[in-house]
């Protein structure tokens, strides 16, 4: 059993037992935090190793943001003459990492070429520890910084730019260097499938979700650093590695489940359709090795209940949970990660007249239950989930929204009322908005 297996480039781990696998050689990852089992190709055969944690560290790929112009990482010509022009953010706002490279390069150029004028054009400067000094130093060394609006910087010739901002308008000639665009390694696409990690829109393994610490992925015990995590992590690479290794130390010494109640699969009802496996954002379900059914891997489960609400056979439930019969009236279901936190800070009289329940995620609400809660003519249901990109369960808010949309569409087609079920998004500090929302919903004015 290894403490950590690196997929991609390893980093030094003095107190953790480690090994490394090339991204293209990984075949499959089964198991859970503390007990992963990785299958991979080695010397013409297939091998399997066990590990407590996994770190993915793939390189970032650089693409030219301005084709035909050298980028920041290429050498400056020390013998050359004429002015030097650095352009950042031509296509998109560069990450702090690229920002740091550009500033470092401009500073170096200014120091080594006191006779040449250095220009630095940017739309946004993102400072991290270290790069704020670079900016100050570069200014002192004579680098001229110009902020430009998108589309307001033109390149009329191979060595020429024209700049307008406010009342200022100028044309400059010089050797142009452009910031590179950082792209995910193509290997990440396959890795996201074999490791069962929901990737970000750009294809990185970390989704920049506010509920996930920087190197955490949706699968507990699998971490993404460097170019696997996204360019935003590159500037603070060492800190993030340190944080990740500390996390793994903690897991190694004290691995506890994240949720108290067990989610149980009834092996007589489970038909191995793999729906739970596919909808779980945390890769916490696998086919049992003992029963002819799926099983919830306890330490991997984050408790969102997506498996329970989406199981087509009704085979998954929380142990010892009793049926919650709700009386008629206005119901509000609040996600424990957003609206429920806001509720605690809100004057409780705003909840008067509501039957309210705390839920682990908006995706945990079952379609069949919503219909059950709407049996009375005055019944209405309000489901409060998180904003996109802050849902702890990554896609939970979207799933919750889709359940509500489908229910509303069906109710409307049968003339059973418009808008009897409502999905809204909140964040924990929005207690005032919650109060207003509840009052408007009570009055039927949403």
């Amino acid at each position, binding site marked *: 059993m290894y403490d950590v297996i690196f997929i991609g480039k390893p980093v030094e781990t003095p107190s953790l037992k480690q090994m490394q696998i090339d991204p293209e050689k990984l075949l499959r990852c089964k198991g859970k935090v503390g007990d992963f089992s990785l299958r991979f190709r080695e010397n013409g055969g297939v091998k399997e190793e066990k590990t407590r944690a996994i770190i993915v560290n793939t390189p970032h790929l650089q693409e030219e943001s301005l084709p035909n112009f050298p980028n920041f990482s290429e050498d400056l010509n020390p013998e050359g003459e004429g002015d030097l022009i650095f352009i950042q953010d031509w296509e998109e706002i560069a990450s702090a990492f690229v920002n740091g490279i550009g500033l470092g390069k401009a500073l170096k150029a200014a120091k080594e070429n006191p006779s040449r004028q250095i220009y630095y054009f940017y739309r946004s400067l993102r400072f991290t520890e270290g790069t704020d000094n670079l900016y100050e130093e570069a200014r002192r060394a004579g680098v001229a910084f110009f902020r430009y609006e998108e589309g307001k910087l033109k390149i009329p010739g191979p060595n020429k730019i024209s700049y307008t901002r406010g009342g200022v308008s100028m044309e400059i000639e010089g050797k142009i260097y452009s910031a590179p665009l950082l792209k995910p390694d193509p290997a990440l696409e396959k890795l996201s499938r074999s490791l069962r990690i929901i990737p970000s829109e750009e294809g990185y393994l970390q989704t920049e979700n506010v509920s996930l610490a920087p190197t955490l992925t949706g699968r507990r015990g699998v971490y993404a650093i460097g170019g696997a995590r996204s360019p935003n992590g590159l500037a603070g690479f060492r800190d993030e590695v340190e944080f990740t290794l500390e996390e793994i130390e903690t897991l190694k010494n004290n691995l506890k489940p994240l949720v108290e109640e067990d989610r149980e699969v009834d092996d007589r009802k489970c038909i191995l*359709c793999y729906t739970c496996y596919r*909808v779980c954002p945390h890769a916490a379900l696998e086919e049992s090795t003992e029963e002819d059914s799926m099983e919830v891997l306890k330490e991997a489960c984050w408790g969102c209940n997506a498996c329970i609400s989406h199981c*087509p056979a009704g085979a998954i439930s929380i142990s010892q949970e009793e049926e919650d019969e709700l009386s008629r009236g206005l119901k509000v279901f609040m996600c424990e990660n957003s609206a429920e936190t806001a509720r605690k800070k809100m004057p409780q009289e705003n909840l008067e007249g509501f039957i309210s329940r705390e839920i682990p995620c908006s995706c945990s609400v*079952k379609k*069949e239950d919503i219909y059950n809660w709407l049996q009375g003519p005055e019944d209405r249901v309000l489901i409060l989930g998180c904003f996109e990109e802050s849902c702890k369960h990554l896609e939970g808010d979207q799933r919750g929204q889709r359940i509500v949309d489908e229910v509303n569409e069906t109710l409307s087609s049968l003339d059973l009322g418009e808008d009897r079920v409502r999905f809204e998004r909140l964040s924990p500090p929005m207690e005032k908005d919650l109060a207003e929302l509840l009052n408007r919903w009570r009055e039927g004015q949403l």
Partner: protein
Amino acid sequence: MIVGQQKKAEEIIKMLGEDWDSLLIAGCGTCVTVSLAGGEREVEALANLLKIYYGKKGKKVTISTDTVTRQCDFEFIDDIGEKIEDHDVILSLACGVGVQHLVERHPQKVVFPGLNTSFYGATTGVGEWAERCVGCGECILDRFGGVCPVARCSKSLLNGPCGGAQDGKCEVDDDIDCGWELIYNRLKDLNLLESLLVFEDPKDWQHYRDGGPRKLINKEYYNE
């Protein structure tokens, strides 16, 4: 597996009509549970929805639910035999096979289909299925790199593509991959392109629907 899609609630209600007091919604626990159309969850959701509908209309009804492992086998239907008999009408959320098998077992009962049986398909994404086989009765996948020209080509052409495909997409719909492009690419990857030079005789459709309703006997098991 057989992929099904639940009929719209409006259509189901119209189909059920008014001439009943008790309804049993019968789910099927195999293919259509996997394709998320007729398993326990869908049965319960539909029952609760219909209760809202008839409640609003003021029609007093009893709606019960049950889901058996497979409606295409009598042994499972018999598990809920009394329940079927005790209800005025049955709404089956099985595929067309299950609905008819239920009818054969309970010839006196009115049984309605709650699903449209869509096709034989594979799960191609979460909540997504795609047709892969038409059940033609005479498999020819060996000659086409494992990609079926009957199921994957809109025209079921056997000797190469039509002229309507563009950029790998079928002229019938841009969302459909040209089956023949899939076949070509696959055989090219396998270094077997030459096999496409062999002329494929016209297909004997007697093994398909053109020979009438089909029946199959496994002699080892079959008692005459």
